[in-house]
C-alpha cells in the first residue's frame, strides 16, 4: 500500500485505426498460415502432381511490387505537402494494381487453356484457392486506395491529419499484400 498520489499517466499514443489494421493483418496471416499448413500436409499424398506455373506470374509479381513503390512515392509527396502529386502517384498505383489482377486472370486463362482446372491436381486446387483468396483481398486493397485518393483529392482541401492516416493505412495493407503474394508464389513454386 502506498500513500503517495501517483501522477495520471498520459493517454496511449496508438491510433485505433492503426491498431485495427495490424490485428486485421494478423487474421489474414493466420488464414494463409492455415492454407499453407494444409498445403504442406496434402503434398505428401501419392496423387500430388505439380502443375507448370504460367510464366506470367513472375511478371505479375514484378508489377505488384512495383505498385508499392508508387504508394511510397505518394506518401513522400504528402510528407512534402504536395497533395496533387500524391493523388497522381496513388492513381498510378491503383492502375498498376488493377493490371496485377488482370495478369492473374491471364494466368488462370493460360491454365484453363492447358486443361488445368480446379480439381485437376491438388496442386492446381491450391493454386486457384491461393490466387483467388489473395485476389479478393487485393480487390479490397484497391478499394482502399481509391477511397484514400478521394480523401486526399476531394473538391475541398484535404483534412491533412485524416488523409495522412488513411494513406498510412492503405500503404500498410498494400505492402502486406505484396509480401503475402511473394510468399504464396514461393510456396506454390518451391514446395
Amino acid at each position, binding site marked *: *500500500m*502506498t*500513500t*503517495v*498520489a*501517483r501522477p*495520471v*499517466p*498520459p*493517454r*496511449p499514443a*496508438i*491510433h*485505433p*485505426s492503426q*491498431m*485495427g489494421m495490424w*490485428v*486485421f493483418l*494478423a*487474421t*489474414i496471416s*493466420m*488464414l*494463409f*498460415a*492455415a*492454407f499453407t*499448413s*494444409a498445403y504442406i*500436409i*496434402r503434398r505428401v*499424398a*501419392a*496423387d*500430388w502432381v505439380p502443375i507448370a506455373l504460367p510464366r506470367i506470374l513472375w511478371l505479375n509479381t514484378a508489377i505488384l511490387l512495383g505498385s508499392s513503390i508508387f504508394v511510397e512515392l505518394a506518401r513522400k509527396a504528402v510528407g512534402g505537402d504536395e497533395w496533387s502529386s500524391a493523388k497522381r502517384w496513388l492513381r498510378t498505383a491503383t492502375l498498376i494494381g488493377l493490371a496485377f489482377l488482370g495478369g492473374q486472370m491471364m494466368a488462370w486463362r493460360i491454365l484453363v487453356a492447358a486443361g488445368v482446372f*480446379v*480439381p485437376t491436381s*491438388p496442386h492446381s*486446387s491450391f493454386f486457384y*484457392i491461393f490466387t483467388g*483468396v489473395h485476389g479478393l483481398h487485393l480487390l479490397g486493397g484497391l478499394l482502399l486506395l481509391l477511397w484514400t485518393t478521394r480523401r486526399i483529392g476531394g473538391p475541398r482541401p484535404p483534412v491533412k491529419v485524416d488523409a495522412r492516416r488513411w494513406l498510412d493505412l492503405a500503404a500498410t495493407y498494400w505492402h502486406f499484400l505484396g509480401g503475402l503474394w511473394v510468399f504464396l508464389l514461393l510456396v506454390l513454386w518451391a514446395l
Partner: protein
Amino acid sequence: MSDKDLGFVRRYIFSTDHKIIGIQYMLTGFLMAAVGGLIAMLIRLNIAWPGKQWAFLEAIFPQGMAGGIMSPEFYIALVTMHGTIMVFFFISYVLVSGFGNYLVPLQIGARDMAFPFLNMLSFWIAAASALVMLLSFFAPGGAAAAGWTAYPPLSAIASAVPGSGMGQTLWLLAMALFIVSFTMGGLNIIATVFSGRAPGMTMRRMPLTVWSYLVASVIGVLAFPPLTAAAIMLLFDRHFGTSFFLPEGLVVAGELLNHQGGTPLLWQHLFWFLGHPEVYVLILPALGIVFDVIPAFTRKPVFGYRITVYCYLAVAALSMIVWGHHMFVSGMSPYSGEYFSVMTMVITIPSAIIGVNMLGSLWGGAIRLKTPMLFALGLIAFFGTGGFGGIFLGNATADVQLHDTYFVVGHFHFMIGGVTLLATFASVYFWFPKMFGRMMNDKLGKLHFWLTLVSFYCIFLTQHFIGLAGTPRRYYAFTDYEFLEGIRGPQMLVSVAAFVMGASQLIFMANFCWSLWKGKKAPINPWHATTLEWTLPSPPPHGNWGAELPTVERWAYEYSAAEAQDDFTSQVVPASQIPATF
C-alpha cells in the same frame, strides 16, 4: 450528438451505441438459446423413450418426425444443431459479443467502441448468420447432420445423409457469416482496449473482466481464420470436385466416388485448431466476470490480480497448441499423443491457479449470498468438476477408453456449457440494473439458481458415469445393446432432470420480462462496486460520459480500504483523498 436527436430506428435498431448493440446481441443470443434448449429437450425425449410416437411434434417437423416418430437422421441433425447453436449463437453472442460490447467501453472509460460503425455491421451480420442457421431446418433434407464439428466425409458429400445437402451448405454459409462478424467484433475490442482507455486507466488498473475480453479476443482473431480456410476448402470439396478432405475409394449410396488423396484428418486438425481455443474464447470472459462479481459480495479485493492476468496470458498461449487432445483416437503417432497429453497437463496449471485465486477471493470475505454471487459460486464448483474430468480426458491413455462416450458429453457441458451458462446468468443479474435501470427479483433469482444448479448436476454428473459404463455419444437409441441395459435408469434420470432444468429457465424469462417494466428502480450503484460503470446513471446515456472523461485514480478492487469511510472506493475517487493501492 445526443441520442434524443436520432429517430427510433437509429437509436434502437441500427444503433452504433455499444450498449444498445450489446443488448441486441444478448437478446438475439437468448432467442437462439431458447431454440437450442428446446432441441435439447427433443434429444432427451428420444433418449428416454426411443421410437415413441409424439403426434403433436409431427405438425412442427413433418419430415423428421413423420408419423410422430423421430427418425435417426433427424436425431443426429438435432444433436448437430444443438451444439452449433449453443456454442456459436448463444454463448458467443450473449457472453462474448453481448457483455463484451456492453462492458468493455464502460469499464475502461471510453465513450464507445473504437469502430462504432463496424460494431453495428458485426451485429447485423451476426443476426443474418443466426437467421441462415435457423432456416437450414427448413431446407430440403433438413438441417446439417455432421455434428457441430462438421467432420468430412459426412459434411463433404452432399448425398451422404439427408442433412449433408442443402442443410450443410447453409450451415457453412451461416458459419462464414459468423466468423466474419465475430472476427470484426474481436478486432474492435482489441483496438478499444489499446486505444480507448480513459486517462489513468493503465493496463494494470483494468478490471479482470476487461483483461479477459482482451485475451479472449486475441485468441479469437487468431484461431478463427484457420477455420475459414478449412471451410473454403470444404466448399471446394463439396462443389468443385477437389479432394482436400476426401480419400480414395469412398463409396456413398452404392456409388464409388471420384476423389483421391485427401484426408479427413486434415479437417480435424484445422477444425480443432480453432475448436480448442474457442473453448477459452468463451470461458475466459466467464472467469473474468466472476472476478468482478465476487468482490462486490465479499467486500474485499480479488486475490492474486496480477497472477490471474499472467495465467490468462499463459492459458491463451497454451490453448493454441493443445488441439490434438481432441484427436487421440485418430491414429496419430504415439509421440504426438504424448506431446498433446503433456501440453494439456501443462494448461491445467494456469487454469488451476485461476481457480485457486477465485477461492482465495472468497477467503475471509464478508460473503453476501445475493443472486449474482450464488451463480458465481456455482461457477467455481462447475469449473472444479469440469476441470477434474478434463484431467482424465487429457491423458491419451484414459481418453482411448472415454473418447466419444457420454463422459466427454458430461465434461464439456460442465466447462463450455456450465461455466459459461452460470457466468451468463451472473452477469445478467449483476448488470441488469445498469442496463435497464431496474433490479431483478432476488427471490425468483435464487429459485432459478438452485433449480438450475441441482438439475445441471443431475444431468451432467450422471452423464460422466453413463459414459464410464461405455455409452457412446450421438447414438439414436440404446435399446439394442445388452451391456447398456443397466443404464436405462440413469438415462431416465438425466432426461427428467433436463426437463426440470429447461422448465426452470421459464422462471428466469419471467423474472427478466417482469423486471424490465415492474422491477424496483435501481440506484446508480446497487452493489456498492468500484468499477467505472457504477458511477454512471442507470442506464448510462449515449456517449456514456458527460463533457469530460473520467480520470482513473486506482485499480478496480479497492474494497474495505482502511482509510475510507465506505467499504468500497470507486476507481475515480482521487488518490489524494483516499490512498490508492495501485
